[in-house]
């Protein structure tokens, strides 16, 4: 009797083993879609409550007024130079210059940034630190590179071809009607092809951003570790009233 039960157990076990071997489910169907995180969803309270103190602290710091802008400042209000571009480049020249001087003993000659790097307009009215985060959300710093005259000419050629108002300060470029160079002045003096100039710019551009390949010819490289955004915050605080204008720093003659 015991033997018989054992046999039955074995038979059942074997039967189960084989019959259930194919039981493992296999992938047969996939369906995919995208769901919008829409404004009709109700926010989860515990998440809201968790974020609140972080948000309050940020708002406290960012929303206190540090300057005033009488008019809108945008990157689209000029052909080859704009109020927003001039503001940023002027701020960098004024505030990064002394740091470069104290570290190297050399003077910062001019500044070139990129038009695409201006991420927002500054609306007329109160200017806060938040404004600086809006125009410059990225963690880019100002670096200073030494460029020989030939690289400066390549830079001017790049600017002519780009036909964009890339922010400039400390340099004046006047083009003839046919896009040839009429005048280049740096720090108010005629451009000297044999001289090495110190150019302040964004680490993003020196690292290959916007294909500004002339930066590859750099002879010297100094990292100021000064965030462009912090330069803007410091500049707003220093100036109180922010009213940049478009001028003749980069223009094309129409004759």
């Amino acid at each position, binding site marked *: 009797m*015991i033997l018989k*039960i*054992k046999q*039955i*157990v074995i038979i*059942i*076990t074997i*039967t*189960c083993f084989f*019959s*259930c071997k*194919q*039981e*493992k*489910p*296999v*992938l*047969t*169907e*996939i*369906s*995919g*879609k*995208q*769901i*919008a*995180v*829409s*404004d009709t*969803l*109700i*926010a*989860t*309270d*515990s*998440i*809201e409550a*968790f*974020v609140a103190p*972080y*948000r309050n*602290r*940020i708002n406290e*710091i*960012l929303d206190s007024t540090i300057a005033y802008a009488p008019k809108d400042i945008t990157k689209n209000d000029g052909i080859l130079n704009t109020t927003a571009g001039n503001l940023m480049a002027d701020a960098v020249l004024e505030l990064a210059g002394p740091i470069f001087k104290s570290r190297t003993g050399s003077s910062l000659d001019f500044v070139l940034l990129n038009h695409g790097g201006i991420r927002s307009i500054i609306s007329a009215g109160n200017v806060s630190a*938040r404004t600086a*985060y809006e125009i410059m*959300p*990225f*963690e880019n710093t100002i670096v200073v590179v030494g460029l020989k005259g030939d690289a400066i000419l390549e830079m001017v050629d790049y600017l002519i071809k780009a036909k964009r108002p890339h922010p400039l300060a400390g340099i004046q470029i006047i083009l003839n009607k046919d896009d040839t160079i009429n005048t280049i002045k740096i720090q108010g003096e005629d451009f000297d092809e044999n001289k090495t100039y110190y150019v302040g710019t964004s*680490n993003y551009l020196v*690292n*290959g951003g916007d294909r500004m390949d002339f930066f590859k010819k750099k002879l010297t490289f100094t990292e100021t570790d000064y965030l462009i*955004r912090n330069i803007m915050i410091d500049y707003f605080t220093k100036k109180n009233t922010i009213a940049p204008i478009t001028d003749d720093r980069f223009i094309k003659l129409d004759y």
Partner: protein
Amino acid sequence: MDRRKFITNTTATSAFIGLGGLTLNSCGVDTKKKITILHTNDVHSHIDSFPSTHSEFPGLGGLAKRATLVNNIRRENPNTLLFDAGDIFQGTPYFNFYGGELEFKLMSMLKYDAATIGNHDFDNGIDGLFAQLPHAKFKLLSANYDFTNTTMQGFTKPYDIYTVDGIKIGVYGLGIELDGLVTKRLFKETTYLNPYEIASDTERILKEEEACDIIICLSHLGYQYDTDKPDDLKLAAKTKYTNLIIGGHTHTFLDKPTVVKNSLQEDILVNQVGCFGINLGRIDFYLDSHKNMAVDGISITV
């Protein structure tokens, strides 16, 4: 009662009961399972919803609303996993002020299972990323970044395996080439390895050695480039075992997930849900014990 006899009898009885159970529930009846995969990419520190006045995304996004959506889906199907395809950091003052702490804490509260590493996740340097790791209760997966000689060494995994309702889901991570995109000073000694070769090796391990039922790639390569730069669509065409590529980096808004052929001419899915937490991707995997995949193939509906 003789003890041996009792045990034998019990075994026999159990076997009969077991047989009955198997016949009714398991062997005789079709076993169907459903695994839900939810995903985000390129959230870029967008913790708050966009303001209702925003020109592009009025009222959209926000972690607290995403939490509601995820919780609703988990309630509907507890067999749900949640992933992110990188660029968690950078884009709002939350990152500038707190360095990613809040992003990681909130993702942990939403019970993210894993994320891969995007180029912007290096924005405070590799040490800045490392400093936030204690706030992450989810894993960072990267198969093609070699972090030897960096602080991150030993703190990421190339892949992970999740067993959900008895189904094995293998997930691996791929990152974009950092050189030219991120300053060397930030990524330090991190070495980028060829994503195609790494993907091929990793999916083979997950399929052949780990016997995974579903294989998912979290990629921060980008959806598509005209050049020979590696992207998700080119990757998909080279894979054999990967069922789904969850992408990022290019902030690509798709009307629906893309169905593409892998190297075995089988259909697989590539998806990406734009950026800034505007959308949540949802992929449902259905498994069935009665259908024969080898004959029927996997049907994909988008």
